[in-house]
């Protein structure tokens, strides 16, 4: 098919870092232009005003800015959690479910033990419980992958919905007020089990916990023996065997870590943000985080940028939408368009396209 084509596509050996970033920047700018056209088409709003509106929606007030930061942190944490799995080429698209079971474990402790335990003990318990729940949810598909090579993409995907049903199951027992079929704000009077403020900052703990994990994961992947094993298994299982790495154990252990961190994200979402639980607690973040991790090439610090950018645009779009009485799902459309462009731009980073004269 390409025989007569004058296009010649060749893989690049390497690319200067600034060129790669220039290509990404161009992609982002293009996507913003397309978004502006879409928004203009719907609202007839001056595109410059649109971006002013987005800016104000995302960081216009201190409260909005903090919500943006809080959501950035959660998205970042999930992406951090996914990193080791993806580095191992294990397609964990079950973060959504791992978050939910972690959140459910947190909510359970808030409801059943909230008033009987001192805050520090409760916090540690919730932290550990949410992590344990996430570990279990991550390890199940890993065991089947390790021993039977069961397709992990589809397995983890299915487990998301099993987790969702577990949450609705719990809601039946936890609903408040009765008959609402929602849990409502848990311990709204006592605030028991709510992640406390840190130094006067409402979401201080969220930031601290996520940054600790970010740095921890960076160190784990870069300097630890286990992180090294993960990288080797991901690159070549033959080499891993040659180096006497226990591939099965590495797969299971790594998915435990991945699921555990996603479980902790559930803890942050329930105890540190919404103070309630529902099937939409994860809200697609598990999927978005996959894209964040992938686009960042698993670089923890790039992930901060990408997470912030996506949350920023999302929050801004919600603001625009509400200004025009439009639906807040506009943010997903905007996010989708941006993602398409960035995904497409990777091609131009990986490959060089040369226009050669058709040889005769």
């Amino acid at each position, binding site marked *: 098919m390409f025989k007569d084509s004058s296009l010649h596509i060749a893989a690049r050996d390497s690319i200067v870092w600034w060129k790669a970033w220039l290509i990404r920047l161009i992609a982002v700018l293009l996507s913003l232009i397309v978004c502006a056209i879409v928004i203009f088409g719907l609202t007839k709003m001056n595109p410059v005003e649109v971006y002013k509106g987005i800016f104000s929606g995302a960081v216009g007030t201190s409260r909005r800015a903090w919500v943006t930061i809080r959501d950035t942190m959660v998205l970042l944490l999930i992406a951090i959690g996914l990193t080791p799995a993806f580095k191992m080429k294990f397609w964990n698209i079950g973060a959504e479910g791992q978050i939910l079971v972690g959140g459910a474990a947190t909510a359970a402790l808030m409801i059943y033990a909230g008033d009987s335990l001192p805050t520090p003990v409760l916090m540690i318990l919730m932290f550990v419980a949410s992590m344990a729940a996430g570990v279990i949810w991550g390890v199940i598909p890993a065991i089947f992958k390790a021993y039977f090579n069961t397709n992990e993409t589809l397995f983890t995907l299915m487990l998301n919905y099993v987790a969702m049903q577990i949450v609705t199951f719990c809601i039946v027992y936890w609903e408040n007020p009765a008959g609402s079929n929602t849990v409502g704000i848990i311990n709204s009077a006592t605030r028991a089990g709510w992640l406390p403020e840190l130094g006067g900052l409402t979401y201080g703990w969220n930031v601290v916990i996520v940054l600790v994990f970010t740095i921890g994961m960076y160190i784990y992947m870069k300097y*630890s023996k286990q992180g*090294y094993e993960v990288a080797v298994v991901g690159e070549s299982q033959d080499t891993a065997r*040659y180096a006497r790495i226990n591939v099965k154990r590495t797969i299971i252990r790594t998915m435990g870590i991945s699921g555990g961190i996603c479980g902790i994200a559930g803890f942050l979402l329930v105890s540190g943000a919404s103070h309630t639980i529902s099937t939409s607690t994860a809200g697609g973040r598990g999927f978005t985080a996959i894209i964040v991790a992938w686009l960042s090439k698993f670089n923890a610090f790039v992930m901060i940028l990408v997470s912030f950018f996506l949350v920023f645009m999302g929050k801004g779009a919600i603001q625009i939408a509400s200004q025009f009485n439009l639906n807040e799902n506009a943010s997903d459309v905007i996010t989708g368009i941006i993602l398409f462009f960035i995904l497409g731009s990777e091609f131009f980073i990986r490959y060089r396209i040369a226009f050669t004269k058709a040889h005769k």
Partner: protein
Amino acid sequence: MVEAVNAIELKNITKRFGEKVIANDSVNLTVRKGEILSLLGENGSGKTTLMNMLSGIYFPDEGQIFVNGKEVMISSPKDAFDLGIGMIHQHFKLIEVLTAAENIILGLPGKMTLNMDEVIKDIQALVDKYGFELDCRKKIYEMSVSEKQTVEIVKMLYRGSDILILDEPTAVLTPQETEKLFAVLRNMRADGRSIIIITHKLHEVLALSDRVSVLRKGKYIGTVNTCDATESSLTEMMVGEKVSLNIDRPEPENPREILKVSGLTCLDNEGVKSLDDVSFTAFGGEILGVAGIAGSGQKELLEAITNLCPIAEGTISCVNEHGKEVVISGKSPEHISKESIHIAHISFVPEDRLGMGLVASMDMTDNMMLRSYREGKGIFADRKKPRELAERLIDKLSIVTPGVSTPVGRLSGGNVQKVLVGREIAMHPDILLVAYPVRGLDINSSYQIYNLMNEQKKKGVAVICVIEDLDVLLEISDRILVLCGGRVTGIVDGRTATKDEIGLLMTKGQKEESHV
């Protein structure tokens, strides 16, 4: 109009890979209509490359190709198809979950609706005509290798190929299957089709072909009529005069038994014996060369010693300097002594350098760690020592690289091999296993690798190396173990053995088995 006599004529075909490797050097070849031509040569003599240019996989750098007397350009497999050239590769291009008939008609134009019964009738007619044995409705994954090969041949015939190229078709067949294949090939010849069969098995050449063309190290040596040829005349053409390479071969000093292999048998995925009752002893301070046609069990032998390939029968044991013998590998790994890890350090340079021995996307430091990252206490891996090692290797082996943090996949073949061999030697092994150490390397790098192996030998290491080039093998090895079909057909002295002797041992097993 006079009909052209030659189905194919190649004139001065040259193919280079990169700057230094010339796979085919000005090769001339003629294939007549209705004949079976054997293309004979050792591994790496350029047979497959030459034929790949006929089938559209490669494009020649220089030279002309004539098909039925007309000069042609073959730039894709489709071009080859259109000219009636069909090649059956060693790795079959078949889709496992489809039936034989479905594979045969794949991609062909025709009516929208697929009437399989009709198709099968057509194919069956072809199958019967030449005397194949084939169940058209059988799925590929249920087939034996020989059945798959039949499907490939029928596929080519069904698509109207009258020039068939078979790349070492008998390598995977039993003697009985080989006989059947030869029978259908003769039928096809009788039908006026031309057949080129790539091989290095002399008795097959003599049994089947009309003429034999010989390649050696990329060069065309000559063509003879099979009736005028004998095994020894062909061997001479194939291996040529002994070339002196001036590789050092120090005398072994105080050789002592280090590795004992006895009765080693391994099975491949299909349950066929890839190693069959292999026994030998390797001594410290000597280089034991392993010779054999590709796929005779070399890979399995090295992988069995390193515990990477399951063992069906037999044991492998090591002897330490105090004469204590410990089993390091055997049928059931549980019975292996706990001491085995400490008794002998085995270093292994595998054939697949970037796919097994190294991680292409990682830098030199991280690749140095591959075998040693567990060292040291704590959860963190020490990168300081590997980095120092990497720097030392760059210095000592003059590895050309932008730096220790460049991914090894970006280095040239010779430098990749130096990284790998350097790392394995740095582990201070008692036994060093090396597979195809100089494959794809230029002369200078090759000599550097030979020197490294000799250095280890002088240190008292037992070096076992698989090398395909018999000239090299004869100059570097103290003893040579010859494998044929997974069996040891001889262990000869490297100083006194001749190329012919080894060449015959390499095909000995087959000769006894088949009575074609």
